[in-house]
């Protein structure tokens, strides 16, 4: 397993169930610490996760995780993968800690290490006090955390989370998102989050893949997008004297900024490398212009998502 290889490398991946093409010619390489899969219901997010896990056989192309082929090296890959399914999934009639221990042992941990890890992950996800309770008695929120616990018990390198905040109340949702961010920031595991909730993906992911009707509608590197957004400014001006606005515009153009005039009092500017907001303020003082409002461009994930949904056949 090569850590330098992309986390997910899709190479013309296609999945067909009977006459229904569920995934079609997916291509791209994704290397972020946390990758979000977005899309409307039926877009193919869960099918993509299940195919990467080896549950469905690709009917076209292939995919690689950390450079390992999902079909040829599936067993070896699954040793390094943790999976939190969307729907309720547990083993009936046993306590939470025994359930997680069993899952860790099936992943290959020796019994003693599995037991130790099971206790640790229960405390980590915040279910420490409930670990001896039968899993059937857990509430919906507890079951979500239990699914996360079993997914991380064996210390996977890659974590697939399918709708991790489904059915959670606001505090539980915040706790789940905090845990995902913590795991991401630990650097011990890469995360793939499938969700239809844009906010959740925006809060934990660095890269986002938007699927629509089994195809990649768009790809967005949120970290880069956020950095780029910091260079786009929107300014509302109040000129003290006649012609001050024009001279201010010429002045910041002189700094190397690209400037677009929306109206007499509002301009948009793109800062070149090396030019900071303080330089803009300095120009404003020089030109006797008052900046009433300065704002960064805010392209939200929602904008990106809605834009992607407008076109059907978008590709990377």
């Amino acid at each position, binding site marked *: 397993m090569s850590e330098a290889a992309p986390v997910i490398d899709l190479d013309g991946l296609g999945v067909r169930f009977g*006459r229904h093409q569920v995934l079609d010619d997916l291509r791209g390489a994704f290397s972020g610490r946390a990758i979000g899969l977005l899309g409307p219901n039926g877009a193919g997010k869960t099918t993509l996760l299940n195919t990467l896990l080896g549950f469905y056989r690709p009917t076209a192309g292939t995919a690689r995780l950390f450079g390992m082929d999902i079909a040829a090296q599936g067993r070896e890959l699954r*040793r390094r993968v943790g999976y939190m*399914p969307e729907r309720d999934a547990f083993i009936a009639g046993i306590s939470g800690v025994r359930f997680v221990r069993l899952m860790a042992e099936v992943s290959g*941990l020796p019994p003693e290490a599995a037991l130790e890890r099971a206790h640790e992950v229960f405390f980590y996800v915040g279910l420490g006090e409930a670990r001896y309770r039968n899993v059937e008695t857990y509430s919906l929120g507890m079951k979500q955390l239990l699914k996360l616990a079993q997914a991380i018990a064996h210390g996977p390198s890659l974590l697939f989370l399918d709708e991790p905040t489904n059915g959670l109340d606001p505090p539980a949702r915040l706790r789940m998102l905090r845990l995902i961010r913590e795991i991401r920031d630990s650097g011990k595991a890469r995360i793939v989050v499938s969700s239809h909730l844009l906010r959740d993906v925006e809060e934990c992911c660095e890269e986002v893949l938007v699927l629509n009707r089994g195809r990649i509608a768009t790809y967005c590197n949120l970290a880069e997008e956020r950095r780029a957004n910091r260079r786009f400014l929107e300014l509302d001006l109040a000129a003290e004297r006649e012609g001050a606005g024009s001279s201010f515009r010429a002045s910041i153009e002189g700094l190397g900024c690209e400037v677009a005039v929306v109206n007499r009092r509002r301009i948009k500017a793109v800062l070149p490398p090396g030019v900071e907001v303080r330089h803009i303020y300095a120009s404003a003082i020089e030109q006797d212009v008052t900046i009433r409002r300065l704002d960064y461009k805010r392209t939200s994930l929602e904008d990106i998502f809605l834009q992607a949904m407008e076109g059907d056949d978008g590709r990377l």
Partner: protein
Amino acid sequence: MAVYDHGYKGYDGPLMPARSRFLVISRYGLHDVFASRLFLAFFAFCFAWPLVLLGAMYLRYNAEAMTLINLDSADLLEFVQVNTWFFQNLFLRVQLYLAFIVVLVVGPSLVSADLRNRAMPLYLSRPLTRTDYVLGKLVVLGVLVSAITWAPGLLLFVIQASLGGREWLLENWRVAPSMVVVSVVWLLCMSLPMLAIAAWVKWKPWARIVFMGAILTGTAFGQFYKEFYDSWLGSMVVAFDVTDALSASVFGTQGTVQMPEAAAWLAAAALASLSAALLYRRVRAFEVVK
């Protein structure tokens, strides 16, 4: 990630060999089975009959003990003839009936709950194949059935061989492998259908009812066919006829059922293969609706 350290950490420790991973499922399955005191009591009861036979064997070779309990040695020698018939009918047949109850009680609980609670994606997202899963569950039934059939049978055989001497051993050596073969074939022919039904029905009581129903329906149909057409073909769907014919074939004795050996083997192979295919079809992470 110690319990006091609430930060996420990976696992870099040693791993168990992949080949024996299915035994984890078996170990947990056996633990859960014996968690029931009622089952534990029944399982202990399954050893009662081998103990009775062991006592009879001991008395047969111990005139002093027979005198102590006022037993006529001639009567006992006449009654307890320790030979192929003894092991085939007096021991194994009884134990197989008990093993049938074990399979009926334990079999459905092994897979139906996993499928009903959608645990399959959890198992199969790990380095475990569908075959490993089925094998792991089958080992549970294998251990339980073996423990009350061929394992005590072999023990009785060894004790009898030590009491009966070389002559008895040379005359009856075939008994030992025959007990193992009949038990294993019987295990496959009963366990696989039970697991397959449990996987499709997903509810323990219903799985037991359907299994019993299938056996009773097969028996009724087979008997009717045999009577009406005067043909052994009806025995192909009667589980007990097939078991009798197989047992006679393996032990090399005269069976009570008029059925060709090949037909009995064919029926057993067909039943096991069909059940394995049905089970394998059901044991998957997600159902694909085409």
